[in-house]
């Protein structure tokens, strides 16, 4: 039967090709424009890693107690050394990394070359896969390298250009602050804006690329000191970088990957348990006051994401709505006119279900055709935003499959509904009445 309905539908659509084309175009443009704008808006909405931001979390531990909280009761935005290392040791998230900003000097090999000052971060090996950092050559380092304080380094392509002329430098060695480090990997110009992994030090945005990444414990052991912000509630008892590690000053950023809601709940309980343990042991004299925010919430709490970009997403949705209403209107006009045809088919013995099936097929064809066109246009649109937009923004505009599927579903369901109403109305009337009135 379906084949017959398909033939009927195609015949009916062919009868008014202009109108059919308009409907398909309207849906196609609606779907394409709203998904393309959605992905671009999302790119500029300050979410630097939109495909993963919901799984990245920033824990905050109240190491200073009531006197050190801000006016709204927030604990410090960074961690002290004790807590950061304890959390890394417990290793409760699927991936995590403590990190601090460094600015070591590098002595290039070759005669007469001057030392360079570079900026970077000391991180754990899980940092790179957790943040999907793209590698040009090689990769990050392993958990074993972290534990063994291996002398390895990951450099960015800019520094690789400068030191090795852009060649594959994996395995070669670099002299950093007087010690030799083996290059484990070269990043492919990775410089996300905002610099979401260390908002506290960059204020979200930093004009200098991170050129080197050293293993956290290796950098600590080598005495490569913190180049970022340090906030203290009291003057450290000991001086220097080691004194800083023993103090309650906060200077370490932390990020953890938690894949689902259960993992988030478990991690939250773990943090509270950790704080209670500190309370029991007498280190904290206050009840747990931790925070665990996902990346978007964290960026917004640090006022990195401008809120008005969210409004633009609503505009893209408004566009889709206009396109759908438009198509539904056209389909209705077309179908409402066919009560005569319905009457004839009913008089010849077709049950209502057969009429529904026929019209749903026709509406469905329009919906699917518009959806497929929209899909193609979206691919073209997302691919071509690079022509109009700056490269860093265009690169971020990725196709969101789940969003696309949802939009397609909405388009098909809306057209199907547009097909149902006239059929329902026509099938309410006696067939004889419709035949007579014609």
């Amino acid at each position, binding site marked *: 039967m379906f084949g017959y309905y398909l033939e009927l539908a195609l015949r009916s659509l062919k009868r008014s090709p202009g109108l059919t084309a308009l409907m398909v175009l309207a849906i196609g443009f609606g779907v394409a424009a709203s998904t393309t704008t959605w992905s671009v808006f999302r790119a500029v909405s300050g979410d630097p890693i939109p495909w993963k931001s919901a799984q990245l979390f920033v824990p905050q531990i109240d190491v200073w107690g009531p006197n050190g909280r801000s006016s709204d009761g927030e604990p410090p935005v960074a961690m002290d050394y004790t807590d950061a290392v304890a959390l890394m040791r417990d290793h409760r998230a699927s991936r995590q990394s403590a990190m601090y900003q460094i600015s070591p000097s590098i002595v290039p090999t070759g005669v007469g070359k001057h030392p360079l000052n*570079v900026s970077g971060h000391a991180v754990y090996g899980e940092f790179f896969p957790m943040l999907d950092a793209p590698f040009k050559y090689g990769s990050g380092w392993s958990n074993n390298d972290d534990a063994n304080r291996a002398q390895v380094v990951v450099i960015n392509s800019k520094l690789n250009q400068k030191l090795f002329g852009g060649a594959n430098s994996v395995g070669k060695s670099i002299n950093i602050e007087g010690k030799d480090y083996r290059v484990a990997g070269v990043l492919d110009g990775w410089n996300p804006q905002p610099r979401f992994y260390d908002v506290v030090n960059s204020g979200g945005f930093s*004009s200098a690329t991170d050129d080197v990444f050293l293993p956290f414990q290796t950098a600590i052991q080598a005495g490569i000191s913190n180049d970022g912000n340090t906030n203290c509630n009291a003057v450290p008892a000991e001086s220097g970088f080691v004194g800083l590690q023993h103090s309650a000053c906060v200077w370490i950023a932390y990020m953890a990957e938690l894949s689902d809601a259960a993992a988030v709940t478990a991690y939250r309980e773990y943090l509270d348990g950790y704080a209670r343990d500190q309370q029991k042991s007498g280190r904290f004299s206050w009840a747990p006051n931790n925070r665990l925010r996902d990346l978007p919430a964290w960026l917004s709490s640090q*006022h990195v994401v401008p809120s008005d970009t*969210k409004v633009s997403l609503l505009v893209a949705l408004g566009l889709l709505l*206009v396109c759908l209403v*438009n198509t539904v209107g*056209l389909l209705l006009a077309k179908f409402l*006119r066919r009560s005569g045809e319905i009457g004839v088919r009913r008089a010849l013995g077709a049950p209502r279900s057969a009429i529904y099936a026929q019209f749903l097929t026709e509406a469905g064809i329009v919906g699917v055709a518009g959806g497929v066109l929209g899909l193609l246009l979206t691919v073209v649109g997302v691919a071509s935003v690079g022509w109009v937009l700056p490269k860093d923004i265009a690169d971020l505009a990725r196709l969101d499959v789940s969003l696309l599927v949802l939009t397609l579903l909405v388009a098909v369901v809306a057209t199907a509904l547009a097909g149902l109403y006239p059929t329902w109305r026509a099938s309410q009337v006696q067939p004889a009445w419709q035949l007579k009135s014609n």
Partner: protein
Amino acid sequence: MTFPALELRPILASLGKHRIPAILIVLEIALACAVLCNAVFMINQRVADIHLPNAMDEQGISIVQVSGTDPKLAVNDIPRDMTLLRSIPGVSAVAAMNTLPLSSNDWSTSLSTTPDAQISAQSSLGVSEYLMTRGGEQALGLRLLRGRWFSDGEYASSELGDSFMPSAHVIILTDSLAQRMWPGEPALGKRAYVDKLSYTVVGVVADVLRPQRHMDGNAGFYYCAFFPLSVGKGLGYYVVRSAPQDRGHIVRDAVQGLSKLAPNAVVKGQTFSEVRAKYFADTASMAWMLVLVCVVMLAVTAFGIVGLTSFWVGQRRRQIGIRRAVGATRGQIMQYFQTENFLLTTAGVVLGMALAYGINLYLMQHYEMSRMAWYYLPGSALALWLLGQLAVLGPALRAAAVPPVVATRSV
């Protein structure tokens, strides 16, 4: 052209018969109107952002940055670099600074009217600090409103301490900041505090933008404080002033010359116009996307009107033929469809303006949006009326072309 009252009755009767498609077209126009109002309003807001005034000689400034050199050598490097920059033909002033407006490299601190204020205290304000070497005011082209510039002695004796605050005891504020700190009082001679350090206000300059926007609205974007600084660490930007047309060759010459002086350093040169364009690149692309959304939406709406009206014309060929046969002119047939469209658009626009206003109120409550000016409503209403009349023109002409003889043929 006026629409005789007589004509309205048959149109309304006919629309009553096609209630659902008519309602949908009204709904579509209403939605389009509401989205258009808000989108155009947002586009305008962004354009205003991109052109935020900034009281310095933006068109005559080039920026040169040298990175990758040893900061310990800055005391020697900076005077050498500045001498080279001054020697480039066309350069009228050069200074070194810690950061620049719109550079996204913010040195913010909290300035207060009382010493030792808590960061969260009411009297304490987040401001951006600009440290500049002697001649910074000429290099930037700042406009002094009250007071005086820094003296040579103040420049020479000021050094950057460990807290990243200069050891000078003088400060120049922007007008917005001075008014916010001491509302209704002259700021000159007052003392501003950063923690325990105190600075005497010696001058007030016209509003200069901060390196990046903070949360406190447009006024807060101008909270800057200028400090004098002698040559030393922390000065990463050279500000080079010239006539606008000389900037191209000055940037080239500067990059070439400084690269020769420091072969291992990365030298980056750009005009301030490029700095501004880069800072607002996101805003600009957002505005363009909104324009795209508006165009697609208007096109779809127009297509919808064309499609539906064509369909109605096709459906009413016999009725049109009969009207023509009993004496209606082509003009009257055209007028019928134009009037019909006008009625539908009017209904849509009225609904749409209410909707647009509602959306704006909702956005104001939830998304820090400002109130839409009233003229956006009639503006987009007018746009949709025009669009409707243009869209209906084709189908209406086709309707007018239906010959009277159609009436005599049976289906």
